[in-house]
């Protein structure tokens, strides 16, 4: 029983990170209609920027995270402008290739600029807490709470504000958006900015319990793809729920099935879901 | 009976797009379906051509139940259709579009393709022949090599006809074949439809252009909210109170 609760909490932690990354990916999917393979690299840069601010400039954790959000958000925005915007009218495979190009670039850049080694991100919230037989560090609570807050804010922003809704509108018909007076280019940039920011937040939150290194994006990105498929591509609630489904199924699966095959669990889950519902769980009727 | 629907129904979620429709299509004639927007006309077509499976009820073709057959099997039986939004292979030329239309009448498989067997050659010739024939039938011979993307609406409609004709159909379902086409050209298209009927092909069409329908149709069914509210000759329909109220409005014969 105790172990179950502990594992549920572990699943919650990891699921929060997955959800944040998947959210960014799903938002960008809405604009590009292409899975952005470079998203994992953006996440990685997010970790490095925060680390650099903390370790080399001695800034506080939160300030560093804020700077990372701005820097990485801007980076994502530039990527939209320089790469994806010119490609918006060509077939989607082209954008995918361009995204792969960016992925290669960013990883090479990180390796050159920060070196290929693993870095540790210090956290001010390292103390260990024991309650009701649960063990965790404050950082872990922070991950969960911060992720949920960010998600609620984002959801409210997208659903309740006009600007937020433009993101959804744009994802469905670009010219249509223009015709109601939306500056589609600005909104596309905004979306990328938000996606980048989410990735930076996710990376900054997890790095203290993990490490920062050029390949860190690979760890989450493939899972984020699984999530947005399970949740229905482009679906915001789908990305959130999918993230937690995966987080829980991993921690519970590792406990009660086999830890060696816990990665396969995610993919098998996906294959089963898609075999039954080829458009994902949250797919909505079209046509 | 040629094509017959029995208590045909289709639900989308809670919505009855087509509800309990009994209808029969007369062989060799021009049949029409009219009704307000969202009445279920396109859905009705989709049910017959196998795009959707009925929620309940049946579609009979020459006495055989085809309601659960996939769309391509129904096409093989000789049931062709066009789409409401013109649906063509935009990047290919008219000829390239139409030549594909006859592929369902071919038997060549991978083997034939790789070894370029006699059968393949024969069938390829046959498809080309057919394509040229139907292109000329719809009057597009002079632009057979132009990519479809560069054509006008009306020309595209003709290509859609040609494509349907290339499948060697017995019956063609036309979903708003003259939408977005001006009156002058509409007349030309209705002449073409008549010509198709004269070749012995049964026609069933959806249109909002009453003038054209009244001229062309032999029999009309009116749908409203998924239900059949009237059926009869143009004259009968034109005078049907319910139809006027639901659909035609004041200037009935506009």
């Amino acid at each position, binding site marked *: 029983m105790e172990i179950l609760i502990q594992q549920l909490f572990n699943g919650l932690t990891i699921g929060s990170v997955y959800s944040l990354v998947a959210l960014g990916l799903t938002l960008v999917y809405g604009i590009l209609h292409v899975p952005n393979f470079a998203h994992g690299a953006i996440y990685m840069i997010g970790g490095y920027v925060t680390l650099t601010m903390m370790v080399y400039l001695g800034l506080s954790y939160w300030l560093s995270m804020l700077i990372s959000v701005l820097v990485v958000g801007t980076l994502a925005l530039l990527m939209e402008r320089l790469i994806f915007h010119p490609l918006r009218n060509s077939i989607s495979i082209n954008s995918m290739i361009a995204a792969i190009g960016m992925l290669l670039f960013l990883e090479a850049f990180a390796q050159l600029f920060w070196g290929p080694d693993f870095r540790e991100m210090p956290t001010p919230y390292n103390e260990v807490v024991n309650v009701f037989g649960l063990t965790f560090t404050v950082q872990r609570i922070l991950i969960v709470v911060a992720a949920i807050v960010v998600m609620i804010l984002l959801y409210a922003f997208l659903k309740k504000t006009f600007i937020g809704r433009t993101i959804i509108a744009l994802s469905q018909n670009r010219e249509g958006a223009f015709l*109601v007076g939306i500056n589609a280019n600005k909104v596309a940039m905004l979306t990328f900015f938000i996606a980048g920011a989410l990735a930076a937040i996710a990376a900054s939150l997890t790095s203290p319990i993990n490490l920062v290194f050029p390949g860190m994006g690979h760890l989450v990105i493939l899972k984020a793809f699984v999530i947005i498929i399970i949740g229905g591509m482009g679906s915001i609630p789908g990305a959130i729920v999918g993230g937690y489904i995966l987080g829980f199924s991993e921690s519970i699966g590792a406990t009660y099935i086999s830890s060696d095959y816990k990665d396969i669990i995610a993919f098998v889950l996906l294959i089963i879901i898609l075999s039954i519902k080829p458009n994902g769980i949250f797919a909505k009727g079209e046509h | 009976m040629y094509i017959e629907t029995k208590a045909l129904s289709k639900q989308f979620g809670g919505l009855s797009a087509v509800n309990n429709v009994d209808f029969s299509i007369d062989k060799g004639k021009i049949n029409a379906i009219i009704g307000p927007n969202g009445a279920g006309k396109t859905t009705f077509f989709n049910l017959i051509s196998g795009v959707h499976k009925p929620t309940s009820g049946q579609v009979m073709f020459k006495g055989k139940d085809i309601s659960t057959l996939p769309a391509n099997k129904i096409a093989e039986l000789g049931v062709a259709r066009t789409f409401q939004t013109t649906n063509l292979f935009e990047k290919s030329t008219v000829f390239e579009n139409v030549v594909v239309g006859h592929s369902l009448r071919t038997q060549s498989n991978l083997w034939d393709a790789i070894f370029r067997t006699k059968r393949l050659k024969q069938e390829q010739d046959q498809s080309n022949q057919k394509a040229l024939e139907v292109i000329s039938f719809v009057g597009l011979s002079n632009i057979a090599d132009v990519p479809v993307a560069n054509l006008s609406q009306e020309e595209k409609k003709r290509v859609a006809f040609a494509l349907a004709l290339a499948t060697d159909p017995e019956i063609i379902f036309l979903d708003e074949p003259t939408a*977005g086409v001006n009156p002058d050209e509409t007349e030309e298209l209705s002449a073409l439809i008549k010509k198709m009927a004269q070749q012995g092909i049964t026609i069933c069409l959806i249109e*909002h252009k009453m003038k054209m329908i009244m001229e062309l149709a032999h029999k009309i069914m009116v749908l409203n909210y998924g239900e059949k509210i009237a059926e009869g000759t143009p004259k009968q329909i034109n005078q049907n109170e319910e139809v006027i109220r639901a659909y035609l409005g004041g200037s009935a014969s506009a």
Partner: protein
Amino acid sequence: MLELNKVTVKYGNYAAVNNINIQVNQGGIVVLLGSNGAGKSTVFRAISGLNKPASGEINFEGIALNGKSPDKIVQAGIVQCAEDRKLFPRMTVQDNLIMGAYIHRKTKSRIKQTLKEVYELFPILHEKRHHMAGSLSGGQQQMVAIGRALMAKPKLMLLDEPSIGLAPLIVEQMFDSIQQINQEGTTILLAEQNANAALNIANKGYVFENGGIVVEGPKEELLSNEEVRKAYIGA
């Protein structure tokens, strides 16, 4: 109010619209007639900024629209209801309409009012307001598109073949409502196949052929023009 001066629009090397002049006066209804592919939609796209003219000028209320982006043009008061509708298929009907009022997003109460008016015009949309726009029938979608354009309360509304795929009853109602919208102060530029109905509510028309204007003049003149009658009115 709107003035097109020697405008040419090209797709690649092909001039879909060639050196045309159009004048739309405040408060009027102007129709563009012409067979398919004559270039009407292209003109609309150019006015809305979706295509850039290769040469010529487009002026609206004395201001040049040429280099402006589509959203700026909407803000200036020109809204288009496009030929292929360009709805947001996975948003509800109501959200689609509300997005139409994007440029008025600061005045929520007014949006509510306009929304009510649109629903009065197309009651079926009220019934379907919580459905995804993409699941509507062709004609219903057309109504959403017109409704969405109305939501912007434009000074000049461009309607590209609004009657396409609509039932006769609805077409009739729609032309009535165009007239009504016009009387409430919106200038209308309309492209139509249904030349008779369109010319009846219009005060001026242009006839397109192969990207150029071949006939232009006030409604009466066009209605009595033999060739126009034959080609576009069909009687």
